[in-house]
């Protein structure tokens, strides 16, 4: 599966969003579900799905779906 599709699924599951959620435009703290608790769940889910390890700066900078996508591509590149 495309990385983007997999990441989308990770966001939907980790943040408990609807299947038709507008994931691509999501930003940290932009919706109730993506608060600090949701953020930790999301980071753990991304690490699991893509078998990567995010460092401090990457966790703090993961502020949108777009940033997450670029990060995952870079880490797996």
């Amino acid at each position: 599966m495309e990385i983007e599709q997999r990441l989308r699924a990770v966001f939907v599951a980790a943040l408990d969003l609807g299947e038709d959620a507008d994931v691509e435009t999501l930003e940290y703290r932009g919706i109730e579900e993506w608060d600090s608790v949701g953020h930790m769940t999301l980071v753990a889910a991304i690490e699991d799905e893509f078998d990567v390890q995010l460092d401090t700066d990457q966790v703090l900078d993961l502020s949108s779906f777009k940033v997450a996508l670029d990060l995952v591509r870079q880490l797996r590149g």
Partner: protein
Amino acid sequence: MTLIGDGARLVDVASGRTLGHDELVGEVARAAEAFSALPEGVLFARVPIDLPGVLRYLGAFEAARAVALIDPALSAESLGKLIARFRPGAVLAAPDALPPPGYRADDDGNWVRTSPDGVAPHPDLAVLLATSGSTGAPHFARLSRHAILANAHAIAEVLGLGPDDVAPTSLPPHYSYGMSVLNSHLARGAAIAIEPSGILGRPFWDAVSDTGCTSIAAVPYHYEMLRRLDFDPSRYPRLRTLTQAGGRLRPELVTEFDARMRAAGGGLYVMYGQTEASPRMATMPAEMLAHKPDSVGPAIPGGQFGIQLGDGTETTHPKITGEVVYRGPNVMMGYAEDAAGLALDDELGGVLPTGDLGYLDEDGFLFVTGRLKRIGKVFGNRLNLDDLEQAARTTELGIEIVAAVPADDKVVLFAEGVAADVCKQASRALGERLHLHASGFDVRSIDVVPLLASGKIDYQALTELI
């Protein structure tokens, strides 16, 4: 007496503006003057983490107007119910909606009461905080001006706060711990850096660096996050202390953050309090933490602990477990259930039965071992587990037999014979009802909830399943 000590200042990170002492006093006086003209009654102040939010609180306090600090995320429905019950003189920074019956919207963004049904609050009453948790109607702890000021200075004393200190807004002002960070710093002429993005936000840490923060306040789940972030205090050379309250921190994390902070030349302060005590009751001196890692420390200056036994007598003898009773100038006046409750005099006389179980050691250090009532914590918010079970039964998802068990910073609810998707829906429903993240309610299906011979739920057996 004022909350704004000599040298107190606010740094508004969003605008880059710093309000020095004189400017801060001027802004607060301006707000206070406007609030003084509002109709009689408590003021409801919605307090987001921003400069206007902080000035709103300080303005009401300095105007000697009783002010309830309201979570800006509170739903319109819940806010409406609180307004109906307490008939505030005004709702400051009201939601962008039509005002409720008996209120009009003014030009400053407030709802102002037009009906003549307000109650004059007791003259000593300064701050009202909703006690978190109960699934029943929330009520307010009534904190007097004297209690707020006494606690602000006691906290500042044990933490050694002074004019060079700076704390970021890691917690919101409507939460008692967040309020006490504001109070203790401003009262001692220190600074508050206002930045709303929280411990996982890049802008928060930029603000910690740029404003030279010396102390950060955090609750247990923040410490879990800080561990995940591999928090390195040496990246912030001015950072001297971490403080911790809002529930028991796992012993591994106490040890870990004690070590991290000491390695960086600072310290971790483990503290104990309740909203009902404005809120601090005990603080563990950082340099003693390694010797007594399970203790929350001695009572703060001006306070004392006793242990109440089953027969109603009280002792300070070491190693005797009972209900922790706190005495001090910072104990609340009582609760308010409705508008009439705002006028009540002090009902506690400086004595607070905490509902916590614990014991003192020979040095007077307190060790908290549990709760009298079954209480769980979800992300630092106290929840009565019996109420939570009732809430789960009334979700209309067909849950009839359910048992709630605390697990670290969340609650596990065992629901008898329900499907996995119902568990998920129940978790979401509880999160919505209690305004907490759904992941704090781990609803699990179980074939049969185990019972004791007495027919009561065997919570011990369930705890072992977690």
